[in-house]
């Protein structure tokens, strides 16, 4: 083949490849536009929450929650059809991140699972009550990671990165740390819809921009808030078995029944990674704070500060994935720990029970 023909062929091939990429991008854009315009099928939790907060297309928005609690109707700017759909999609993502209730998770949840490693993590596990946890009287709960209260903090100083992080970047932190996954691009629809939902919550609850509320973030528990006994692995293990094991499984690998997730993993491949702020060795105040204010479900605020720190200490000693920035060698080490430690632990624990498999938890651990 002559040089000219070869050059011509390479140009034609390149143009074809680039045209193919452009065609694919156009098709993907159209697909996303179709999803944006489509009616949203709400999860049962979202249907209940959004109807309670009176989300409808209107010129003005008056929150029934505010009216009920204060007796005064506050009129705010309303929502267009597009806004309503974005809020609905955002609510669905928080409630059912993995798309278990969706007909087509890739379409209805904007591929959120692509940004999550493992099959357990869902926003609702930490941001309970679909990001708006309340007691029986409708009072928001301290340290419950309310999304509405988080949104009104707007650009928040982050003491770990030393940066002012907008709400979207804080969501990215959740994806890379808590769900041990990847960051969506800041322009991704996942972040936009979750932001729309969080913003709606702040309007529904009449939260004010720039104000700090008790339900925002974690009620952190430092060592200074304990009787200074020191955090103890053995006490933590005992407490875990007494309070947590029934839901999260013997080795904290989570619990599934009939293909449905009962409780998420606190260790193992489906759990958060060692660069997460939930990891006790990285930040020792966040996980104890979460446990004290949000666990066990239905019996929140019953554990003492020291007990929460002990449980958090124990959980963080269980094998879990390495963070991406720790590099492939540490990742391999943690993978080996996750693969070999659980069977070894089971083996070691068996003789203590007199050789009797008294605990059926290993079979239930997934």
């Amino acid at each position, binding site marked *: 083949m002559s040089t000219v023909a070869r050059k011509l062929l390479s*140009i034609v091939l*390149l143009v074809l490849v680039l045209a193919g990429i452009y065609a694919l*991008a156009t098709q993907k854009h159209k697909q*996303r536009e179709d999803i944006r315009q489509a009616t949203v099928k709400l999860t049962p939790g979202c249907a209940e929450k959004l109807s309670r907060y009176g989300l409808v297309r209107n010129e003005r928005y008056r929150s029934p929650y505010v009216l009920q609690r204060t007796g005064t109707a506050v009129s705010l700017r309303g929502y267009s059809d597009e806004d309503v759909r974005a809020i609905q999609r955002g609510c669905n993502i928080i409630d059912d991140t993995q798309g278990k209730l969706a007909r087509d998770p890739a379409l209805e949840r904007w591929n959120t699972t692509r940004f999550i490693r493992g099959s357990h993590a869902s926003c609702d596990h930490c941001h309970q009550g679909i990001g708006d946890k309340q007691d029986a009287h409708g009072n928001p709960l301290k340290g419950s990671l309310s999304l509405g209260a988080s949104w009104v903090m707007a650009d928040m100083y982050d003491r770990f990165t*030393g940066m002012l992080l907008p709400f979207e970047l804080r969501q*990215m932190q959740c994806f890379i740390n808590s769900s041990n996954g990847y960051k969506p691009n800041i322009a991704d629809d996942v972040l936009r819809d979750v932001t729309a939902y969080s913003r709606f919550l702040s309007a529904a609850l009449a939260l004010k921009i720039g104000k700090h509320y008790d339900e925002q973030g974690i009620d952190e528990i430092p060592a200074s808030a304990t009787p200074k006994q020191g955090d103890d692995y053995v006490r933590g293990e005992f407490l875990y078995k007494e309070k947590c094991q029934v839901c999260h499984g013997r080795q904290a690998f989570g619990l599934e029944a009939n293909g449905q997730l009962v409780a998420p993993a606190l260790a193992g491949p489906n759990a958060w990674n060692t660069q997460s702020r939930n990891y006790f060795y990285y930040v020792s105040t966040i996980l104890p704070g979460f446990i004290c204010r949000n666990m066990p479900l239905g019996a929140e605020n019953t554990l003492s500060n020291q007990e929460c720190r002990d449980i958090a200490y124990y959980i963080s000693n269980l094998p879990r994935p390495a963070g991406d920035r720790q590099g492939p060698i540490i990742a391999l080490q943690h993978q080996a720990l996750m693969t070999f430690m659980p069977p070894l632990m089971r083996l070691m624990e068996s003789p203590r029970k007199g050789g009797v498999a008294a605990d059926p938890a290993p079979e239930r651990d997934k």
Partner: protein
Amino acid sequence: MKSLAAFLKPPLGQHWPTLQSNMLVGLTLALVTLPQAVAFSVTLAGVPPHFGIYAAVWGVLFCTMLNPSRVFHGGPNTAMSATIGVTLLPTAPPFGAEYMGYALTLGLMAGLIQLTFYLIRPLGRMLDLISEPVINGMICGIGMFLIFRSLTTFGGLPLNTEVEWPLWIAWHSFLAVLEVGNLYAIEIGLITLITCVIVQQFDRLRNWAILLGIAAGTLYSQYLNARVGLQNTLVEQIGNLSSVGLVLPSLPLFNQESMPDIISIVPGAFTLALLGLFQTVAAMRRMTRKAGGFTDSRKAIFSDAVSNCLLPFLSSLPTCASFNRMWLVHKLGIHSRLAIVSSALWLLLLVLFFAKVIAIIPMPAMAAVIILLGANMLNWEDIKPHFKDRREAIVFMASFLSVLFLDLFGAVIVGSILAIGYSKWEQAHPNISVRGNVLKIRGNFYYGSLPLIESTYHRVLEREGSVTIDLSDCYYIDREGIRWLAAAKAGQKAAFADRRRQNRRELARAAAGKDKSASGKRRDRPDRRKRSEF
């Protein structure tokens, strides 16, 4: 003009035909460097465009003054700019005052590290031990890395503010470009890319490909702005450069508050320093081979180090040699420092008078340029020879993959260790052949290779009862080797042979006979070398 050329000739030591041709080459270089300087600073390093422009002006001037090579062309560099971006993204938001301060601090630290390499001679000598497969592996890895890193800007998307493994970013960035990328930005990027590739096919226009590509992308962007409106296309542009003057003094950021961040970027400074020096030494080596002549690479290390210590005080990116631009100077047939100096001055003039034109260049076009440069770094002609030898292929692949799976700092460390390990492995494995009781050693006879030689020696000794060690092709013996040979001879079971000695005798005899017949006088024997005195 001729008198001016004659005036300039002695101090610069030039050997060129006319001043005009130097100026023309300078203009060509300036036009080629300008888009690169802007693209590297904005797309890769995350700093305003004047950083790259000052690197192409002051960096080039400093390097040319300090380096006697007549083809050396410094200025902004892809890999170094990418290293700045990767190192600083976790510490501060790009384009902010703090970020720029850290960028200057990083450059200054890299310059000081490079100065250490110059002042401690053995340290500088270590750079010569980095073999070609390692450098090529790293260059290819960096090429891939540049492609991945430019994807988001190519699709008109913002960069995420922290870094993960480049490969994972690449895949997610690619999907993000497909799904949520700005289609106008993608169109501009594609037009730039296709224009560049087509122009590159014509040898005469090859060096103008980037410039023409950017021109095509900018024209299309202007067409879109006129048709749809900038508020609807939402395509980012470079922005106004009219504030760029002759010089913009700056100070690196050093204060107590920023110390934790500065400490965290020290590994990045090492990477930056080593990457710069690797490229400079490699480019100097290649260019001197291609262009003929010789320039000591220490002079290049000195010029890079001093320049990089000065540039942070002039709002500039660090500098290192650019093989592509050096090759362009060489191909244009000019071996003159004046041409290179004039390129810096031309560039400054271009920026001063055409700031408004540069301001409307769309960012996706810049990203397309970086993608093209990254793709050009993956040159099969450079890679192919490494796959002819298994060991070289392994070193190349390890170096290449370490850029993708570790990070640039990890790649520098892995590359350096591999290069030294590779040369040591080669030395420690001499070619040992056995024929009867003759043990022939081709290679080094030193403490590293001794265990291999010793095991073969004992095997032959056991089988044959005596051994003759043929040292004809042995080109280095260390003291431990001498002691072992002495011990073997003392055991009276080993004999030594050196055919070079025999050959030399024959040669000497022949020469002596010739001389005798010619003049009737006898000449002295040639000196024997120490290594054959066994």
